[in-house]
């Protein structure tokens, strides 16, 4: 047994010096807490899990749901989060989200390119083969 492995070894031997002991403290609001908490207002779509009656007073609004992945997330959130289908649905939506973004990323040049190639092929058949 090492008796002095690091400086300050056993400095927190006394359980009373440990911040997490006891695990639950006598309930009282933390310093800086304000009650009641005003409710955040947002026009962004936010999903809530089935067990909540309403949105919490504060929530994140990053990356609102959209497209097919948003629809899949809406379906997933219709299931409570103690069911695996809720989580597997969200994982599926994540993958669809990635593909939606990739397709959206190539559309600005892919659509005109496909259109141009289609037109060129039509033109070739119409005029060059006469």
């Amino acid at each position, binding site marked *: 047994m090492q008796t002095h*492995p*690091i400086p300050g070894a056993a400095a927190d031997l006394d359980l009373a010096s440990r911040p997490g002991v006891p695990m639950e403290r006598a309930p009282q609001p933390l310093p800086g*807490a304000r009650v009641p908490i005003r409710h955040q207002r947002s026009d962004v779509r936010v999903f809530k899990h089935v067990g909540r009656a309403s949105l919490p007073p504060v*929530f994140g609004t990053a990356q609102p749901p959209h497209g097919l992945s948003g629809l899949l997330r809406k379906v997933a959130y219709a299931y409570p989060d103690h069911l695996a289908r809720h989580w597997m649905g969200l994982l599926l939506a994540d993958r669809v989200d990635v593909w939606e973004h990739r397709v959206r990323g190539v559309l600005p040049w892919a659509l005109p390119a496909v259109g141009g190639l289609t037109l060129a092929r039509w033109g070739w058949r119409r005029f060059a083969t006469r």
Partner: protein
Amino acid sequence: MRALSYQGPFRVRVEDKPDPRLEHPQDVILKVTRAAICGSDLHLLHGLVPDTRVGHTFGHEFTGEVEELGAEVTQLRKGDRVVVPFNISCGSCFYCQRHLTALCENSNPESDIACGVYGYSHTTGGYDGAQAQYVRVPFADVGPMKIPEGMEDEEALFLGDILPTGYMGAEMGEIKGGETVVVFGAGPVGLFAMRSAWLMGAGRVVAVDCVQYRLDFAARYAKVETVNFREVEDIVLYLKELFDGRGPDVCIDAVGMEAEGSKTRRVLGLGLKLEAGAPTVLTWCIDVVRKGGNVSIVGVYGPPWNVLPIGTAMNKGLTLRMNQCNVRRYMPHLLEHIRDGRIDAKGIITHRFPLEQAPEAYHLFANKQDDCVKCVLTPH
């Protein structure tokens, strides 16, 4: 502003995003000065956390300067330097009042299993994180702690997550003096758990990992014995033998859901998603610890489930304790340990990158290259 943006599994880039704005009167906006990459960010990067949306900014370990204040913020002023807990906690709900700020019920609409967390997907509330130039910080009078004058941001940075997490990992082992402790995982959280075990009076501390440079670092930084599990035939039998054939009193899992050690579990969990990741280390903890011993879990696991030897745990009479860290209650105490030299928090930083090189930083950290232990981004 410039910010990290998730693009899909294994892909991040830095791009322009709108500046965050005040969305609640108790918010502040911080100019981010330091943002660390956490081991748990790799679970996001690898697409393992449900509801991780393209465009999401990661980052829940950070320091910053107050840039803008909401109307109800009274404890902070513009220009204050703060370190922020990774939990977003209201301070007044059932759980926060009991100092269980990781369980706050007023910051996460999307799930009941966790409170709001910065940059950790919509499963934890949908807040963009701090691997960016600016970040929105809700409940600013409750969570953030001012960094004392004369203290560098990097000295305080890890008070927001990994230092209290490692400390809580040791604390949940219920060390009373003289116990034998095995810490699985010689990453940053494991390193702090090892030092914390000594602070609590442990008698013997052993680190287990498969990355030799990290074990060498642990031996120097935390003065522990080390075992590379790739160099032994059966890690469970080996560790039991190391502790009189009985096993250690305490096992701490500082690895979580992407553990090495079993190809089968990685294929079933990480590949085929038949369970939520590979709980190989947690299984070892249950098997290795002595009967009547303590298993402390601070490695991150996710929904929906895992296959674990609960029968072994039950018959051995084990105590299993686990939680995301309730960071706020630990910050003042651990700040004193840093100031008095008992914990060299900044000493684990091995790499620093500007924000623009965040993708390279992730690559280096995820692949454990260049003897990387901890990576910190410097957005400003």
